[in-house]
Structures are given as structure tokens and as C-alpha cells.
């Protein structure tokens, strides 16, 4: 039962991920190509992890469009994010998002094209 719910939730996430397939990223111009492609890889994973862990509280809808907020780099500090507010303390724990994953989410949020 739990598994089906999980799978339904997952497929929902996948569908919404597909809907936003054309996510655009903005990297600094002078960033070397190989680093850029590395970051792009991280961003793609980060986006999926964002959908799983953060979207329910942070993605808003305007009509059919989903809006992922533009956070500043000062707001996106790995460990501090976890204790930023009570909702985070209870929801962004080592058992739901590990350090490496949170880093990918942060990379995604940092380089996604601003709204």
C-alpha cells in the first residue's frame, strides 16, 4: 500500500519534471566548459531532489505555470538551511536529505534561470 502511494507520488514528480523539461540555467560566462557540464549534471539531479524535498512548500503555481523561487546565495548555505526555521528543522534532516544531496539542490537553485 505504502509502496503504491510512493510510486504514485514518484510518477507525479516525474510528470511534473517532464513538464518542466526545459529548465534553463545561467552559469557565469567565464566558467570553463567542463565545469559547466559538471554543474549542469548536478543541477539536473538537484532539480529532481528539489521536487522531492522542497517543492511542496516552495513551488507556487501561477495558472499552469510552476514557479520555483529565486533564493539569494546568502540564503543557500548547506547546514544553516537545515535550521533556518522550524519547518526546516523538522523536514530537512540528515534522514530526508543528505549533505551531498542538499549541495546538489543548492547548486540547482543557484544556477537556475531567475524568474
Amino acid at each position, binding site marked *: 500500500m505504502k509502496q503504491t502511494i510512493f510510486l504514485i507520488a514518484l510518477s507525479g514528480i516525474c510528470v511534473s519534471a517532464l513538464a518542466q523539461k526545459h529548465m534553463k540555467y545561467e552559469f557565469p560566462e567565464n566558467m570553463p566548459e567542463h565545469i559547466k557540464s559538471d554543474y549542469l549534471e548536478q543541477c*539536473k539531479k538537484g532539480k529532481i531532489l528539489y521536487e522531492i524535498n522542497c517543492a511542496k512548500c516552495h513551488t507556487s503555481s501561477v495558472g499552469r505555470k510552476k514557479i520555483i523561487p529565486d533564493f539569494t546565495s546568502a540564503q543557500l548555505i548547506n547546514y544553516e538551511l537545515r535550521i533556518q526555521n522550524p519547518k526546516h528543522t523538522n523536514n530537512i534532516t540528515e534522514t530526508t536529505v543528505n549533505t551531498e544531496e542538499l549541495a546538489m539542490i543548492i547548486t540547482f537553485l543557484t544556477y537556475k534561470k531567475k524568474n
Partner: protein
Amino acid sequence: MRKRYVICSILVTIAIFIFSFTNSQQKEYVAYYLNTVSTFNTQQAALLEVIIKADLNNPTEVATIKQELNNARNTLKSVDFWLRYLNPLAYKKINAPLPVEWETEVFEKFEKPYKREGAGLTLLAMYMEEGNFEKDSMLALIRASVAATSVFTADSTTKGLSEYHHFFLCNRLFLLNLAAIYTTGFECPDRERIIPELKALLQSVGNTNEMFNKSFPATPLPPKYLQLYRAMLAFVGDQPLNYTLFDHYTFLKDYVNPLFILNQALIARYNVVSRSMVDYTLNNKATSIFDKHLYNGQNTKGIFLRVNDTAALATIEHIGKQLFYDPLLSGNNRRSCASCHKPTQYFTDTAITASLHFDGVQLLPRNSPSLVNSIYNHLLMLDGKHYSLQDQTKGVVTNPNEMNCTERELLKKVMSCKEYKKTLKQLLTYTPQEKEVTFQHIASAINYYYGQFSNYNAPFDEAMNKTADISASARRGFNLFMSKAQCGACHFVPQFNGVKPPYVSSEFEVLGVPADTLYRNLSPDEGRYVINAAKETRNAFRTGSIRNAAHTKPYMHNGVFNTLEQVIEFYNTGGGAAHGLKVANQTLSADSLHLTAQEKIDIISFMQSLNEQIVFDTPPYNLPASKNKSLNNRVIGGSY
């Protein structure tokens, strides 16, 4: 209409009244805090004054300094409850014991370890103990401590004090420190002051409790808690002042742990939320200090961390077990994890001093550690090279001296087995960020498999949780462990490893372990130095857990000792330095512990009470068949 208006305004007035009343009550608590910090500052100023004026060649004046220092340390005890929690870094300028250490906290994972020197009142106390009087450095210590204290009156620090949340979190840390360090002399170089300082501490926290209850009547410490707290005060009041005669066992079992349990229940009941890194690894659901889930060490699920479905977890565990025993993981298909970590020998190898090299002839420099309870370390390997179990797994399979494989080759071989491939592909649904099976999936399954064996309790845990009892000898052994034998100052309650409250970092120590039992040479292994080169880290090793020690011989990083008696004798004498080895930076005291024969027996009884009642399983009957036929005569568990 009018009536409603009147009622409404009355209600509003009452609400405003209540609000301002509670507000002023909380102000009282904050004022109490500020007042106590200011008393501490006055006391530090008095200490500075006497040091400035003192003639350090005059014993009476030195005695006066000592007296003022004791007073300052006692007033520190009245604010310790808050300061330690509110700003751990500033606190370390006020109270930091030697030796100099390189701290690596879990949130420093992406940064370099930072150096912590001895500081403040504790270091001054050490200087006084050693008769090392140098006025300028004494003054510098206290001035730095005074400067650090000013952090604690800044608005940014005090703003959390007007809400009740911080109190239960400070209290949790306080109770954990009561369990792990306050009675061991960890921060109190003068042994005779340990219990008197404990008494001062308990007394002032008792006052803080009352003040809190007055100011926060909606979220009080219940009568049951206060009653037990008073009983603890009475108990400690009746105890001898000598920390070796102090009954650490009863103190922990009948008072500290039950208070911790009550405090955890309050954290849940009052929905206490943390805004501090101090609580980072602590688990709000832990029901005892001796609950294996007290803190989060390693994430055994790895990439599967969000999987909670029992069927999926059983699948992960099943292939994890097969992979653990599968020599496919090595470059020559002849070694598996089980080659060196024998599951029936507490996941270590008790027959050999150090593990076999990949070449099957030479020995590696280090003894393979037990995997049981490795999940309660923040840094893995004896030199703390790895941050996560998954990285460690990668490290060992790719190490040319150990399993000598590569990530790619390993993945290819594993995926050549139909059964592995099918299961791993199925599990991909749980990791949507990964399109293909990666090495991480394989490592995570292995880590999850052996991680299960760290969930068992020992008789000592059961005694602490009051579900069983241990022998009188083991109880005496624990009391010695926490006092005269000085073990507890490095092997911290409750895992008895190098992770101390708030359980966010791992400690390393330099013991001067010899290369052989004749003490001809120091072990040439540089330990932590290889990872973080500094003069303090040369020959330093991460403190391991002593749980199951009776079953995990041989001992020390190089397996030089074969019995617990030898290990105790090593410590009793004072480590390598006391045996004439040149160990410039030994962190273990080189003085003899003067343990009697009976005391050594008692300490061993205590260690035996830490043997966990683990249910080991048997090897898998077969390993998945590979498309590559030449791989199909591989030996389950490897051939060497």
C-alpha cells in the same frame, strides 16, 4: 451590539494584560541569565586583578590566585548550562582543556578541520596544577575568556532566551554532559575539584530550573522532574568528594538517564524546535541515553535514504548481504568484504594482527576494525579519512593494497549478474535523480546490510535502562573507568568511542602505541597526520568504541596487543612515553594510573558488560550467476 463591544474590549484588555504579564515574566528569566553572566564576569575581573598584583614567587599569593580561579570556575558552573549551548565556539575560549586538538565537526565536512587550543579557565587551572606560572600568558588566557564572555550578552545570543525552546535543548546537552564528561575530570585538571564543581553545577542548574518554571508557567518542568532532580542533589550531596569513590554508576542509572528520558518527553510534548547546530545529530525520538539511536552518526541507507518501505528495505538488505560476501568486488575476484570483516567474528578478523595485503603475502599496516558500531562514528577509518560509509566502501574496493578494483570494472561485473541487475534496476525507482545504477547503489546496499548489526544492546545498556543488572565487579569497573583509570575521558558515554556530547565530532588521540610488545620502537604509522598534517596529529588515531572489545582482538591500530590485560597494562603504565618511547605529542598522561590487580579485573568485567547480544547470520547459500562464466566459480566470502 454595545454589550458585545464592551465584552470584546474587556477580552482584548485581558489578553494584553496576560501578554504583557508573561512577557515581563520572561524578562525576569532573561534578567536572571544576564545577571548570572555578569557575576561570572565580575569574578573573572577579580581573578585578573589578583594575577596582575600577585608576586608569583610568593606561595601565599599563588594560593590566592588559586582561590580566585576556583571561585571563577564555580561561577562559570552557574552559567555553563546556557553558554555551552548558545555559542559553542565562544565557550571554547572560556573553557577548553588541553591537549590541542584538531576538531572535525559534521558540518565541517566540506571544510578543513580547525585547530582548538587549550584555553580559558581550564588551561589556567592546568598551568597552576603544573606549577607553570608565567604572568603574561595567564593574563592573556583570562582576557581572552572575558572577551569571549561578552558574546553571551549580545542581543543576537540572548534573543532566543525569551522563548521556552532553548531551555529544553540546553537541558538536554547539560544532561548528556553529566553522563559523559562532568564527572570524569575531562575539563577539571585538579582531581579534587571534580566533585565539588559538580555540586556547584547541580546547585545552580537547580536554581535555573526554578527560575524557568516561574517565568514559563505554560511549559514547565513537571513536579516529577523537579523531584527527581532534588533527589539527585541529595544523592550527590551524600557522595564522597573523591571522584574515584563517587558512585558514577548509580548517578547515571538512577538520576541522569531518567532525567534525560523525562526531558526528551518534554521536548516532544512542548514541540520544542531547535535553531542550533548543537542539536544537529541528536535524535528527538531517542528514549534513553542508552538508546542506540541517541544520535545520528552515519547514514547506513546511503543513496536509499528516503526508502521506508519494509519490503524494499528487505530487498536492499538481501542484495547488500550477497554483495558483502561477493569477491566480485575485488580486482582478482578472490576477496570480499567478509575476507577481513568476518561476520561471525564481530565483523573483524581476530586471528591476525593486521589484515592481509591484496598480494596475499604481506600484511597491511593496520588491524581491520570491527564494523559493528562503526555507524556511530562521524569520521571513518583510524585516520578519519572518510566522511561517509559510502566513501569508505569506495576507498577500500579501489585501494590497490586491499581490493584493487575500479568503480567501473566493479559495476560491470555486478551488472553482468542477472539477479543483481534486475534487483538494482528495480530499486532505481527509489532514486529518481539517478538514471542508471551507480556504484553508490551498490555501496549503499552493503552499508545497509552490515549497519543492521549495530542495533543491538549490551547488558550494560540494559542495566542503564533498568531491564537487567550487571555484576558488582562490572559496576565497580565502570566507576573506575569514569575516574581513576581515566578511560571515560576519551571513550565517552554512551558509545564509549571518541564522540562526545553533542556528538558532532570525532576525537583523535596520540597514545604512543609501540610497533611490538617489547617497546623497541614506536609504531611507524603516522595516522591522522597523513590526512591532516600538523604537529599534533602525528601518530594520532581516532578513538574507537570499546563495545564488544572482549570479542574483537587484537587491539590498537596495528593489532599489537592480543589481550585486554595487555591493553590495560599499557594504559596503566602511561602509554608509549612511559615505556621510554619518544612521543613528543602524547595526549595520554605518561603517569602511572596505579591500578591494583582487582581494579584491573573490575575494568575488564565492565568491558565484558559491553558485549552486545548480537544475532549474527550465516553466509548466503549462493551468489548470483554471471554471464561471464569464468566468474561463476568464485568462492562465497572470498578465498583469502
